[in-house]
Each structure stands twice: as structure tokens, then as C-alpha cells.
């Protein structure tokens, strides 16, 4: 226990540290990391509030910008965007019945009903309080669970890593929407696209077709921006916009005594559930909020009120999605394995900064590791401060028409992509992947599994090759009793696939995801 507080202290010192920064020719001494955290939270809330742009596209957009930042500052800002978006998303869900973020889909159900009854204020306050509480607890969870997990992971060999990646990818597909086969196919396609470029082992240029820009592989920022950013814009332009905002009826924010009483238990349950589901590979904010809503509906004595403005339906999922968003950093920080598309981008951000993600990060760069964790707590505090008093400002933003927004988003994406290598080719690829992503969506294939496969492709090939070399070509090495951890991962993946393939559960899974769309 003492070790943890010592470690958190390292983190807080790092977050509040003063640094000399040179920007635009002027050198200033500033608490740089805390400023990055604030920028991240503000941006996160902003894109969370605005429907039509998600954290994946935003983080992808900002990755090239982070080239010039210090590693810790960059990661703190990007993390802030992710959990900030969870806060912001609920505002849109409650006020205009459109989820600003996919993870706040369930908040629409009861939050919007509360707003229609003139209780938008308490609904917004409940969402903020629930998120804040969950954010604090899950920060502690990360601090508690990450070190032992990283210690175990340090002992992993190539066989264990390969199996772990298999498990991660399987879990990600199981939790994707729609058809399981299509999701797996998208993962494999992602793995294949990740192999484009120079093969590390032999130096052979693969699938480059004489295009010199492809020698280093397809930039995953490019893929992410195309398949999420461009694709989202196109999807939004399909329908004419119509928004109805309950601006006049926000009223007083403070929840009543009765509200306080009713929200405590759901927040506690949501936090526990969200923290647990966030750690699982493939988990994260989205799954956590759905699970929490289902649980609350089952256990609450007000279950008849669900769907008509029950405060439990806001408090539970809102705490769960924030807890899930934060604990999904655990597999990233300890194993170097992303559990969702945002985490895949965080891996990219670490690699841009020359940090190999994995269990060694914690021991080799304690400042970075603990600084990031401490920043999450600080960020959560900022978000409550940002969200409650500034709610009027965020609501105003909702009235900005989409036709002003998307050219700006597109411009920033194009600038970001262009700056990766200062070549027009990347922008061309981005447009191509935008088109491809749009086709995929039309064919009912989710882009998220592809991104995960894409980022893991080269890693998986390398570990697979090494494992096979060490075992002299014996494929049973992954499930031999001499490697119990690897065997466990493979068995878990098989069980997971088997469970989902069972007819009864398949139907259930479809039902769960139908509600979402």
C-alpha cells in the first residue's frame, strides 16, 4: 500500500512540474503537463459534446502534433481526450437525445426523458458526479493492479505474447457489433494491412508495389483518420441535420435529496462493473455502460421507471463508462496490448515518442507511467469543474451547424496527415481508407477490429516467428503444459469464441447490440 502512495507521489510531482518550454521562438517556464491535461480534457469534452466526431478521429488527428511535445505531455493530453469525451458525450445524450459518444448511447434512454420532464440540470449533475466518482476509483484501481500485472508480463516470452494477442483480438471481435465472422475477417484484414512495408526479419519490401512511400508501411494514423474520421463525416452528411436542444429547461443543477439517495448504489455498482470490464481485452467504455444499464434495470426497485427518466439509468452507465475508459489503460500500460481502437492509437503515440509499449515502461520510465495515472485523477477533477459551471457554453456549441464543423475537421485531419512525412501520398491514402471504411460500414463490417489487427500485425508476426524458431517449428508450443500462461490464453480465446458461437447466446448478443443502433 505504501509503495502505491509513493508511486502516486512521483506521478503528482511529474504532473505539476514546471518546465521550460520554447514555442514559436519564446521560452516560458510553465507547469506544462498540467496545461496539456487541461487542453486534453477541454478537447475531449468538446468532441464528446459534438456529435459526429469521436475520440478516435480526434486522437488520430492530434498524433502528428505530438511529435514536438515531450512524451509525458503528449500522453497526458491524449488520455485526457478519451476520458473527457466520456463526460462530454453525456451532455449531448441528455440534452438532444443524440449520443455525442457511442458509450453514452444508454444515457439517452433515461437522461433525455429526465430533460423532457424539466430535470435536465439534475441529470447533467448526476452524470458528472457519477463520472467523477468512477474516475477517482478507477485511477486507484490502475495504481493497484498495474504493477503486479506488469511484473507477470515481464516474464512473458514470444509464445505468451502471441497467445495474448490472439486472446486480445478474439475478445475484441466478440464485443464488436454485428456478425462475428465478419469481425474476425476484419481483424485478419487489419493484420494483413499491417504487414505492408519492409519485413523486419528479411528486409524484403512486401506489398509495396513499387511505391516508395509504402516502404515504412501504411501509417496507422492515416488508416485511423480515413476509417474513422472521413468515414464519420460521410455518414453524418448522409442525413440532413435536425437538432432539438433543451436549452431553456436546464434549470438548477443540484439533484434533490431523493435523487442523491437513489444514485449512490448505482454509482457504486457501475464503478465496480466498469472497472472490471475495462480491464478485459476488447472491453472499455462502451461495453461497461451497456452492462451497467442492464444490471441496474434488473436490480433496481424502480425498474418500472426505466426508460421514462429514472436517475439510476443515468448514474449507473455514466459511472461505468468512465471507469471502463480509464481501466482500459491497464492492458495498454502493463502488457502493451491495446483493448480498443483508442488504445491502439495510444500505442501509436508511444511509438512516435520512441517508447516501446510493454511491461518495461513502468520500471524504466516510472515518471511517465505514474505521471499519466496521476494526471487522470487531476483530469477528472478538472472535468467536473469544466462541466458543471460551463454547461451553458457547451450547450451553445451544440447549436453550431454541422456544415461549419466538418470542413474544419477535414482541414485539421489533412494537415495532420500531411505533416507525418510531408508527402501528399498520405493524404491520398487517407481518402482511400475513408472510401474503404465507408464501403465496410455499408457492408456491415466494423472498422474498429481492423484497426486493432492493423496495429498488432507486425508485433504478432515477430513474436510468432520467434516462438516458432525457439520451439523448432512445433506449433503445439502455444498450448503445451510447459507454457501454462500461453495455454491459458489460448483456452480462454477458444472458450470465448465457443460461447459466442452458441446459438442461444448469439441471439442474445444480437439483441444487446440491436438496442444500440
Amino acid at each position, binding site marked *: 500500500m505504501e509503495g502505491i502512495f509513493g508511486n502516486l507521489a512521483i506521478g503528482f510531482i511529474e504532473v505539476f512540474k514546471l518546465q521550460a518550454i520554447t*514555442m*514559436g521562438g519564446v521560452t516560458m517556464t510553465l507547469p506544462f503537463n498540467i496545461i496539456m491535461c487541461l487542453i486534453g480534457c477541454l478537447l475531449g469534452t468538446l468532441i464528446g459534446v459534438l456529435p459526429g466526431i469521436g475520440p478516435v478521429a480526434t486522437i488520430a488527428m492530434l498524433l502528428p*502534433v505530438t511529435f*514536438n511535445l515531450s512524451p509525458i505531455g503528449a500522453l497526458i493530453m491524449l488520455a485526457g481526450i478519451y476520458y473527457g469525451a466520456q463526460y462530454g458525450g453525456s451532455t449531448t445524450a441528455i440534452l438532444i437525445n443524440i449520443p455525442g459518444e457511442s458509450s453514452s448511447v444508454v444515457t439517452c434512454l433515461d437522461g433525455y426523458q429526465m430533460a423532457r420532464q424539466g430535470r435536465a440540470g439534475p441529470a447533467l449533475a448526476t452524470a458528472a458526479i457519477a463520472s467523477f466518482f468512477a474516475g477517482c476509483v478507477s485511477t486507484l484501481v490502475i495504481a493497484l493492479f498495474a504493477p503486479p500485472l506488469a511484473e507477470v508480463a515481464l516474464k512473458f516470452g514470444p509464445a505468451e505474447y502471441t497467445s495474448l494477442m490472439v486472446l486480445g483480438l478474439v475478445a475484441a471481435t466478440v464485443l464488436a457489433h454485428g*456478425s462475428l*465472422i*465478419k469481425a*474476425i*475477417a476484419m481483424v*485478419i*484484414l487489419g*493484420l*494483413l494491412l499491417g*504487414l505492408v512495408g519492409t*519485413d523486419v526479419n*528479411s528486409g*524484403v519490401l*512486401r*506489398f509495396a508495389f513499387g511505391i516508395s512511400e509504402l516502404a515504412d508501411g501504411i501509417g496507422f494514423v492515416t488508416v485511423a483518420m480515413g476509417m474513422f474520421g*472521413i468515414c464519420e*463525416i*460521410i455518414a453524418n*452528411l*448522409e442525413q*440532413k*441535420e435536425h437538432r432539438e436542444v433543451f436549452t431553456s429547461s436546464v434549470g438548477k443543477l443540484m439533484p434533490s435529496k431523493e435523487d442523491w439517495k437513489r444514485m449512490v448504489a448505482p454509482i457504486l455498482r457501475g464503478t465496480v462493473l466498469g472497472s472490471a470490464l475495462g480491464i478485459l481485452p476488447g472491453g472499455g467504455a462502451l461495453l461497461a455502460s451497456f452492462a451497467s444499464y442492464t444490471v441496474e434495470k434488473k436490480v433496481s426497485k424502480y425498474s418500472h421507471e426505466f426508460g421514462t427518466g429514472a436517475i439510476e439509468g443515468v448514474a449507473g452507465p455514466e459511472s461505468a463508462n468512465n471507469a471502463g475508459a480509464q481501466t482500459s489503460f491497464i492492458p495498454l500500460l502493463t502488457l502493451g496490448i491495446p483493448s480498443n481502437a483508442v488504445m491502439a492509437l495510444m500505442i501509436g503515440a508511444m511509438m512516435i515518442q520512441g517508447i516501446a509499449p510493454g511491461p518495461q515502461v513502468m520500471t524504466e520510465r516510472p515518471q511517465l507511467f505514474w505521471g499519466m495515472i496521476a494526471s487522470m485523477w487531476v483530469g477528472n477533477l478538472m472535468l467536473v469543474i469544466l462541466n458543471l459551471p460551463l454547461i451553458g457554453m457547451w450547450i451553445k456549441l451544440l447549436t453550431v451547424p454541422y*456544415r*461549419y464543423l466538418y*470542413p*474544419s475537421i*477535414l*482541414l*485539421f*485531419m*489533412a*494537415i495532420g496527415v*500531411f*505533416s507525418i512525412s*510531408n508527402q*501528399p*501520398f*498520405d*493524404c*491520398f491514402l*487517407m*481518402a482511400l481508407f*475513408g*472510401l474503404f471504411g*465507408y464501403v465496410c460500414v*455499408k*457492408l*456491415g*463490417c466494423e472498422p474498429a477490429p481492423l484497426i486493432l489487427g492493423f496495429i498488432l500485425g507486425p508485433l504478432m*508476426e515477430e513474436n*510468432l*516467428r520467434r516462438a*516458432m*524458431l525457439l520451439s*523448432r*517449428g512445433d506449433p503445439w508450443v502455444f498450448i503445451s503444459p510447459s507454457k501454462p500462461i500461453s495455454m491459458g490464453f489460448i483456452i480462454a480465446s477458444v472458450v470465448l469464441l465457443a460461447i459466442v458461437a452458441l446459438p442461444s447466446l448469439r441471439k442474445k448478443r444480437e439483441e444487446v447490440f440491436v438496442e444500440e443502433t
Partner: protein
Amino acid sequence: MKIKSQQDWWAGLMFIAFGVFFIVFALGTPEFINNIVGTKLIGGYQLGSSVRMGPAYFPVVLGGMLAILGALVLLDSIVEKGPDVAKFHFRPVLFLGLSSLAFAYLLKPLGLVLASVALVFISAYGGHEFKWKEVAIMSVALVIVSVLVFVKALSLPFPICPDFIEICPIR
């Protein structure tokens, strides 16, 4: 045979096509095609063995898996009823694609200011409403922001003005 799910039908075909594509480019064209054409069409990479995998090994395995999964999806499309392919909206696709290409290929010769204006105008044209005045104001605002943020503050190495203008008025 009747296709019961258009969506799955096309998705299956897409996956098979990608799978075959990666296998062929990893292994090279098969012998009999080479014989017909007279030369080796596609070179391919070394396959290696399971102990020492060559650069082609992993892509071939994955490509095979992808093609098989694609076949399963295809099979599913004639067995189980599924949704049709939703309407494809070409206008936004076309204009968004064009605008990012215009930006990319105009940036170096014409500079950030004009490239940004081109992007904003073309992409705005892909939307539902296009008002000259609005778009003009928007592009001016965006140019100012992007020059200040990206070139001045983040010092990205972008030219601001066209390269045929000797002295750039924006410093």
C-alpha cells in the same frame, strides 16, 4: 440459388478478394499462368519453413484464413436472410475525397493558405447547403487558425504562400 443477404454477399466477396490478393502477391503467380504469359508476372516472396518463416509465410496463412472466412460469409448470404446494402451516397464521398487530394497536391506548390481555401470550398460543396458568403468567411477564419496554430506555434514546415511569390506577406 438466391442471395438472401446482399450485404453479406458483397462482404464475403470482398474478403475473398483481399485474401486471394495477399496470397498471390506473397507467393507470386502460379506456374501455369507464368507459362501462358511467358514471364513471371508477380515475383512473390520467400515462403520459408515453420521454423524459419520467410516474408511470405504469415501473409499466406492469414490470406488463406481471410479467404475461408469470406467464403463462410458468402455461404451465409444464401442461407440466412440479412439486410440489403444501404444506399451509397456518392456526393459526400466524392467531394471529401477530392478536397483532401486537392489540399495534398496543392500544399507544396501553392502554400497552406490557398490549399486550405481549396479544401474548405470543395468539401463544403459536398454538403447539403452551400452559401458562398458563409464558406468564404469560414475559410478565412480557418486559414488564420491553421497558420497560427500549425505553422507558428507548432512550427510544422509548411510553406504559407505560393512558391512563385518571392516575398510572402505573412510572416
